[in-house]
Every structure is written in C-alpha cells, then in structure tokens.
C-alpha cells in the first residue's frame, strides 16, 4: 500500500543531509502532484551505507511557477516516499 495515490498533492521535504540523496535541492519545500507510482525501490540515501530498504517511489510533477516563481513549464521528478509529506 502506498501512502500517496495518483493526483495527490505532496510537498518535498526541506532536507540537507550530509550524505547522498536523490532529493534535488531545487524541489525542497515545493508542492507538486503525483503523476504515478513508479514502484518500490531501494532508498539511495540508505543504500550507499549498505542498508537496503525499499519504499514507494512517485513521479511528481511541479509547476515552474511553484519551483522558481515564474515560467509556464513543468518538471517531473521521481521522489522516494521518505522525501515527501502531505501538502499543507
């Protein structure tokens, strides 16, 4: 069971870990919408330390205006469930 479904509004957490992550800084704190559930994959942040734990991964679509304050395009990015919280 996944925490978010297609169409859900989600926010990328604000994080600045010391080690590896696949959460790009540009998405942090921004709200997008789940396009689809990709599957369940190992969380890279832990896998680099030899801890192999899978969790749902979501394709999330962000509007440029939300990410950058301007622009009409959108950016679609895969985000692991740990990177996301429900949009306020």
């Amino acid at each position: 069971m996944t925490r978010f479904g297609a169409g859900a509004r989600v926010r990328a957490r604000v994080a600045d870990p010391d080690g590896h992550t696949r959460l790009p800084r540009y998405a942090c704190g921004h709200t997008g919408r789940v396009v689809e559930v990709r599957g369940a994959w190992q969380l890279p942040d832990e896998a680099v330390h030899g801890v192999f734990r899978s969790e749902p991964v979501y394709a999330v679509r962000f509007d440029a205006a939300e990410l950058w304050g301007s622009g009409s395009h959108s950016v679609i990015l895969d985000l692991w469930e740990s990177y996301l919280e429900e949009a306020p």
Partner: protein
Amino acid sequence: MSGEHSELPVAARVRRLEERMIAAGLATDEEFDDILERVFTSASPVNGARIVAHAWTDPGYRDRLLADGNAAAAELGFGAGTQGYLLKAVENTPAVHNMIVCTLCSCYPTALLGPSPSWYKSFAYRSRAVREPRAVLAEFGLELPDSTEIRVWDANSETRYLVVPLRAEGTDRMDESELASSVTRNGLIGTAIR
C-alpha cells in the same frame, strides 16, 4: 582506453579502481574490455530512432511503447541494453513538447541514444533545463510557440526517458527506415524537433 584520454587524472582514478577490482577477483581486464566494446559498438541513437519510426508507423506499437517502454524496446531486440532501469517513452504532440535532463548526474538510456553528448553532462544544461527550458531550446535552434506546453523530465538511475518526436508532415510515403533516418539524438533528448 584511447591514448588521448590516458593523461587525464580521471583515467588514472578509473584504472586504480579497475586494478582494485581485478585484485579482489571481481573482474578481469578482458571482461572490462568486453563490456566497453559492447557498449560502444551497440549503443547508438540509431536504435532509439528505429523505435520512434516503428511507433510512428504502427499505432499498436506506439501504445505499447508509451505503456511499457522496456517491453516495447525488447520487442525490437533492445531488451538487453535496457535492463536495470524503467524506460519511459514520452510523446511530443502539437500541444506538448518533452525534454529530458538528469540534474543529479547524466542518466539516460545509453543503449538507445548512444554515449551522452558532453553538453548533456554539463552543469549549464543540467541546471538550466529545469529552470528555463524555453531559453535552452532556443539556443539549440528550437523555437517553440508560446502556446506549446514544455514538460521537463528529470531522469535518474532508475527511470530513464526517450522522447518520441512529432512525425514530420508530408512523410506518408516514407518507409520506416527513411523515417528512422529523420530522427536525431537531440530529437530523442528533446533538444531538437526530431
């Protein structure tokens, strides 16, 4: 490794890593050479172009490609090169233009697009593609109407993208191989119209 690259510091680092792997019994020099030769002789944008041309001429295949890129690539014999990641084909329409980038590194489906161009790995492309794609496309000579929606797909190691460009008008009489020859690597990345 070719002579011209052997002086680069990264070449020495790669070689040290190879030597460690060989010393640990994980691989041999012959295996490294085999892998490199396989990659550089079979990975080519000609493969992606064949997939696109087949999708243009066979609506059933186009639907299967958009639904499951890995299975559709395997149908045309590219299964081995597209293992280990999710292959997503994203289709351009008159209203929507897709382009791909990998902001964290330089992931893309090498087997179908060939070794990535140096600009695809540059900080400039990786940072600007998500911020101002329209300006980046204009620098590639691709001026899209303001009404065209641009979708930028930020790839990663697990999910890699292939853009299906728009088929040119007036190509009804072209056969599949002629159509395939109209598709470029930049078209498959989304930085050219096809």
